[in-house]
């Protein structure tokens, strides 16, 4: 039999019982719809965020972080991790996760000199964090919430209007265009050239670190308490006394005193607006020149020597001369024993996250496919019984077992293919509706970006998958049909 004729017959057979064929397909349709919408959403969201991150992140920056130590965030978290629990064992290699053994590995001058000499490096400067409380325009009583970002983290691409910074130490700033709306301006010119006050505060934890870190006596204190709790003496009274003395020592230590000190007053910095930046997802951003940012960063640590030759801080930023230099700089930084981080690392993590999310969603869609498989098997087994006489007639007219098998298998595959097609189209329509809705609802945030974007490979892969699914479901019924004894089939009433 010609393949074309086989396909035509399969089509005729499926249209004979349209309702049943349609109902059998429902499972495949729902599965395909779920997969298309969730994969489109995941893909759309991650490319949207990808764009957003790229728009506000400097592609030329390579951050260098020490591999060991210097992770105050994690270590700080460990201080509170054990509340109500027995102290954890400090395992070899994980010491840095415990606050008691936190060593701030500051980067020394010799390392910075070596970084500066790396081929393709334009400039090297410390990684600066600024904890800003507010930004306020002169002659305006209102304070606005803000995030202050050093210019090197963003890159020239974010500048929308204005001349930009005059020097690396200039007391200037570039303000997100979103502030125009908050402050009540229609045009950037109304903001350009005006002066704002940025209030910066210290952070108790960073300030503690900045003031010299924990010394070995603090570590000893923590360790002694841990040892005591792990190996309690038989005598309970002695244990309570011991614990009391140890805790008293700890409470009297300089470090804890520093932590208990009230926060310092915010420090005010005045800056001239020299540019307006494009607004990204985060609208409340004020960019400042890198040197200016360092001054603000010193407030955070409450340490005047921070970000100077005496104490570079915990991480450095290397600015590559061009994009082509980035991989080389990155490699050199890693060879020096540092952990290197570029925009691609960050975006890679972002995509990994969405890929994981997507696989979970696709897994849910697979439940529909799983059910659909049984539905197809059931329908076809029923069809084999119903069409027993017909199968007998075809056999009498010369159909081979292979032909009968192919006919049923193709019917199953066609149910899969058609279900995938319909479900895929429904999913596509749903994604379009989702895009229209999100533009209407969140247009001010996402602009004209689509949150549902169907990757090009999705439709073909989906169709191949659902067709194979139908085929797999059809194998057993088709085999049953092909094994029918023609004489018995012709006798069947």
């Amino acid at each position, binding site marked *: 039999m010609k393949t074309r004729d086989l396909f035509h017959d399969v089509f005729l057979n499926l249209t004979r019982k349209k309702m049943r064929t349609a109902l059998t397909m429902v499972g495949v349709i729902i599965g395909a719809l779920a997969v298309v919408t969730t994969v489109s959403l995941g893909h759309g969201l991650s490319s949207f965020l990808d764009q957003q991150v790229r728009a506000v992140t400097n592609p030329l920056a390579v951050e260098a972080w020490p591999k060991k130590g210097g992770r105050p965030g994690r270590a700080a978290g460990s201080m509170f991790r054990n509340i109500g629990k027995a102290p954890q064992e400090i395992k070899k290699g994980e010491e840095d996760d415990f606050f008691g053994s936190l060593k701030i590995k500051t980067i020394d001058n010799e390392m910075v000199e070596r970084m500066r000499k790396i081929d393709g490096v334009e400039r090297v400067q410390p990684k600066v964090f600024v904890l800003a409380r507010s930004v306020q325009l002169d002659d305006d009583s209102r304070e606005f919430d803000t995030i202050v970002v050093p210019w090197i983290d963003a890159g020239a691409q974010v500048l929308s209007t204005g001349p930009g910074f005059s020097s690396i130490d200039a007391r200037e700033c570039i303000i997100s265009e979103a502030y125009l709306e908050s402050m009540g301006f229609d045009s950037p010119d109304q903001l350009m050239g005006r002066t704002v006050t940025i209030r910066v505060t210290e952070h108790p934890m960073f300030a503690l670190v900045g003031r010299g870190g924990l010394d070995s006596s603090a570590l000893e204190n923590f360790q002694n308490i841990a040892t005591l709790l792990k190996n309690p003496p038989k005598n309970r009274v002695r244990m309570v006394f011991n614990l009391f003395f140890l805790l008293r020592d700890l409470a009297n230590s300089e470090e804890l005193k520093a932590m208990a000190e009230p926060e310092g007053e915010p420090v005010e910095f005045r800056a001239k607006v020299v540019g307006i930046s494009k607004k990204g997802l985060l609208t409340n951003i004020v960019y400042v020149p890198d040197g200016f940012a360092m001054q603000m960063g010193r407030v955070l640590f409450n340490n005047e020597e921070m970000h100077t030759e005496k104490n570079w801080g915990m991480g450095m930023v290397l600015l590559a001369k061009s994009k082509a230099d980035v991989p080389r700089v990155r490699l050199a930084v890693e060879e020096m024993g540092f952990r290197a981080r570029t925009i691609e690392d960050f975006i890679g993590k972002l995509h990994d996250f969405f890929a994981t999310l997507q696989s979970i969603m696709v897994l849910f869609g697979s439940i529909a496919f799983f059910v659909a498989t049984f539905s197809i098997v059931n329908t076809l087994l029923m069809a084999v019984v119903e069409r027993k006489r017909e199968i*007998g007639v*075809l056999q*009498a007219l*010369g159909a081979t*077992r292979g032909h009968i098998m192919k006919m049923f298998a193709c019917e199953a595959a066609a149910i899969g293919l058609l279900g995938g097609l319909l479900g895929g189209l429904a999913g596509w329509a749903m994604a379009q509706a989702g895009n229209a809705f999100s533009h209407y609802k969140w247009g001010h945030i996402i602009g004209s970006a689509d949150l549902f974007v169907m990757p090009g490979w999705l439709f073909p892969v989906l169709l191949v998958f659902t067709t194979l699914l139908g085929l797999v479901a059809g194998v057993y019924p088709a085999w049953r049909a092909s094994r029918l004894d023609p004489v018995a089939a012709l006798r069947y009433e």
Partner: protein
Amino acid sequence: MAAIEAENLTRVYRVGDGEVRALDGLSLSVPEGELAAVMGPSGSGKSTLLALLGGLDTATAGRVSVHGEALETKSADELATYRRDSVGFIFQDFFLLGHLTAEENVEVPLKLAGMERPERLARARELIEQVGLGHRGGHLPNQLSGGERQRVAIARALSNRPKLVLADEPTGNLDEKTGHEIADMLVQLNAEQNIAMLLVTHNPVVADRAQRQFRLGSGKLIEETVKP
């Protein structure tokens, strides 16, 4: 060479612990181009004989060859090809495919044989015309009378230009007049196209039109009469 040569043909069905000997050492032979009638009481093995000759079933013992072609050594696929290329079946219940028109039913064997559509369409039209249904080719089986359906079945049986036509009570479901018309048609086809035919019938008048008559009983050949 004989059209049909059966030797010691035996077909045993196992039913529970016992067995049914549907055919029990039957031997017969039909010369080329002849029309032979098979008669006998119900359950005597007539349909079983046709199934074995048509390659729908395989014998438990004995040998059968059609136009010199031995069937007992053929595999399932070879038997399917044999049915497709050499045999035409006609059944008491017509066995037309209900979702296909008269013409499309006639096309089925040609489609299975891989014939191109225009060619098989022409052949189907010609056959439909030949059985006197020229104006009914596009009708579905349930839009046709019993006699008309059997004509379609005859056309379908002839479509692959078989060397052997096996008809199992083709007039059994028809009124007397229509039955005779169908019988006339088969006789005429046999005469015109020189196709060997084996015709199972309970009707002595129909059987009388054959040159040769076999009478079966309990799976054995009881009597063979040949017209002078």
